[in-house]
């Protein structure tokens, strides 16, 4: 994957961006989590082999944090878009 399309700036060299990891919604009420759920949130990851929804930051460009859908085996990017609240609805 050499090009990533920033929702503001369009296709740019991937070197301009910083990878922000798989989308991983914050817990709704962190103060009320059990230790086990908190550690699950902090450390455990899906590490999907396939299409993954993930964060990117246009570091050397407009400064936008946005979302991408990328196949982690082929690195093919099928979509990039601005964040909406529904993208990070807490599951715990």
């Amino acid at each position, binding site marked *: 994957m050499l090009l990533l399309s920033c929702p503001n700036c369009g296709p740019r060299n991937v*070197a301009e961006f910083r*990878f922000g990891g*798989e989308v991983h919604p914050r817990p709704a009420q962190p103060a009320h989590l059990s230790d086990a759920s908190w*550690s*699950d949130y902090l450390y455990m*990851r899906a*590490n999907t*082999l396939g299409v993954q929804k993930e964060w990117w930051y246009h570091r050397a460009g407009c400064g936008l944090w946005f979302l991408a859908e990328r196949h*982690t*085996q082929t690195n093919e990017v099928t979509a990039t878009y601005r964040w909406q609240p529904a993208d990070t609805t807490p599951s715990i």
Partner: protein
Amino acid sequence: MSLKLLKQALNTAAPLPRMWRARELKDHYDVVIIGGGAHGLACAYYLAKDHGITDVAVLEKSYIGSGGSGRNTTIIRSNYLTPEGVRFYDESVKLYEEMAAELDFNVMFSQRGHLTLAHTDAAVRTMRRRAEVNRLQGVDSRLIWPDEIKRLCPPIDISDHPRYPIQAALYHPPGGVIRHDAVVWGYAAQADAGGVHLHQQTRVTGLQMEGGRVVGVETHRGRIGAGIVLNATAGWATTIADMAGVRLPITTFPLQACVTEPLKPFLDVIIVSGSLHVYVSQSDRGELVMGAAVDPFASYALRGSLSFIEGIAGHMLELFPSFAPARIMRLWAGLCDMTPDYSPIMGFTPVEGFLVDVGWGTYGFKAAPVSGKRMAELIASGQTPDLLRPFRLSRFAEHDLVGEKGAASVGH
């Protein structure tokens, strides 16, 4: 060895005997190990040798050593940052020192000395701390200054011309390099001789569960019952753990390395720079073997990139201006199962019968002997050996991490 080779060269009739046999796939094994890398093979070898557990199969989706074990830059050392880490890796260095005799195979272990450069005050402080932790564990490790660095490594630039001049180095004389394929083949051959079945081209596609425990694996060649299943698949660790419903704190990143054309031997030691994100050693063939930190984004793709070459070449020339005419001949990538604390995960999981030996990140080749030996002990005894306890999976729920980032993120 060389006489044997010569005899073989003159022998036109028979090819060299195969190092391990192709066996019938049985429908049940006491222990099934998923992943035919150095870790899976070492564990199989020690199960047979130390514990007489020989009803063991190693299942490998491709060929043996096709994962990180055949792609790494073979640095072996024990100068880590935590006492738990230093003790663990030091047992591995000692096992490597005995390995050629143990496996009756020339693994070409060369303990040529390992230098981790410090270019900032903060890095000098970290190196000083590492040296003290190392020495408390009886590991040969000390801080040295530019004049001694230059004596050990004449081509290096210790002047104040580079952007980040060299201030000091952590010097670890027992650190070395080895022939990784020989390690993999040696374990495979001796595991086979001990009665272990090695099944290449056998991909695990699912796990059989019964009453909440693992009772076997599904492969594209059929089902295989198992008393114990060990996940030793490194970069693919979460794909197997998913089948058992076990969550792991692992993200898979590619790590690249490259070699130059062969040059006359001139670089005796291994040089690592954490600040510049590069390291180099010279192979027995004369190639400069160079690597860096993991790729900037998570992926299962085994591809090289131009930005890696650009980065490594630029930084390497800051250390060694004389490398400029050397041409890069080959470039490759392997997958690294990165954990939050840069330490591995070994032992039991919440699912009975399902064990892990994963989280080897960019640093796991050096640990294959000790983890194989101690995981075999864990399987045979049903108890976690003291050396492995700090690396249990439950440390994350207990917030009891073993932070090795300062010693493992670039200098693998």
